């Protein structure tokens, strides 16, 4: 059977223990995990959603810019990190399953290994009071 790269396994294990919302994508941009804190923010647990492709997760939760316009997929920090292998940061809004909008700061960084890029992690930090899915 195929096996996830160890770096992704360890990243998932770490993320599982964090109260900060965090997303994990593999080298192909497939969303392979997000943690409980991210599930609270999005209004849907990862176990309910499962693994989704890059085009799908890019549209599931918005995201929107500060003017409320959809952000092109290619400009999302997680996509930049996984494609270009460099960190990326942005302020944006995401919509949760109930339609509520949440302002968040997003920092994404690539998971680079001896065998090249294995994916990327994005950490979300809610910036507006009351929107915080973290730390609960």
């Amino acid at each position, binding site marked *: *059977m*195929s*096996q*996830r*790269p*160890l*770096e992704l*396994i*360890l990243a*998932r*294990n*770490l993320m*599982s*223990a964090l109260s900060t919302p965090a997303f994990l994508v593999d080298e192909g941009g497939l969303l392979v995990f997000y943690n409980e804190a991210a599930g609270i923010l999005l209004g849907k647990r990862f176990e309910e959603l499962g693994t989704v492709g890059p085009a799908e997760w890019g549209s599931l939760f918005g995201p929107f810019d500060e003017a409320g316009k959809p952000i092109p997929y290619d400009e999302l920090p997680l996509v930049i990190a996984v494609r270009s292998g460099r960190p990326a940061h942005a302020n944006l809004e995401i919509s949760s399953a109930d339609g509520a909008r949440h302002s968040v700061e997003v920092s994404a960084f690539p998971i680079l290994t*001896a*065998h090249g890029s294995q994916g990327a992690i994005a950490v979300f930090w809610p910036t507006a009071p009351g929107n915080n899915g973290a730390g609960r």
Partner: protein
Amino acid sequence: MRVKLWGTRGSIPSPGPETIRYGGNTSCVGVTLSDGSLLALDAGTGIRSLGLAVAEKPARLNILLTHLHLDHIQGLVFFAPAFCPQTEIVIWGPASPEASLRDRIARYISAPLSPVEVRELPCEVSFRHCPESEWEIGSARIRAASVAHRGPTLGYRIDDGDSSLAYIPDHEPALGADLDRLEKDWISGFALAQGASLLIHDGQYADHEYPGHLGWGHSALSHALSFARRTGAERTVLFHHDPLHSDDFLDGLQREAQERWVALGGSAEGIELGAERGEYELSARTVSAAALS
């Protein structure tokens, strides 16, 4: 494929009257393939005895290192074949972004830690980073994959004919993970061990000891049992015994392991603690243990 345990201890050699039966030498497993090729898995102090057993025979030897912690390389400079000009030794190990395998091993095989330098070894020795893809040694196909431990660490799978050996002596797959619930492809080392005829796996701690050693890179008994159950290995040998564990303590741990394994639906013969000089004959769908010598 014939497997012999030459060193089952973890961390530091632990000779003494209280460790006679399970042994005090650190990690080393000898594997004789069906075509007669010899592999050494790790080069802890147990490799000294392995070397004495083959010293009279000019040979080509492959040493597969899981990682470079001292308890896995300490025996290299006491490995008799390394001092035989007729011997060709290939040492395989994990790559690191920091330095080559040769340079990292040379930090140990050099002054002031060693009386000899790598370049002074009389044998023909070469160092190779394990490839990502499967490769062949003799009649076996070898696969290496990174596993959860501290620092770059590999586990190995050796397939020879219809039998297979998985060797993951230093492994903490349960760090931050629930092995009983996690999807299989998210379990460190799973693909190496899946359905193996024999799994040699880290079992350093009793469950009550683990909380004090979280993140040290080793498994508690519960983790080893879960890993063995999930991977479906035919037979499991727990390995890398803690240096503080006496024979009597390990007897108790083995009893507990077997009772819990039976409770999980296995047979008591399906799991045991590795004892130095223990031998296993691996053939298709059967693994038999030879008497301890």
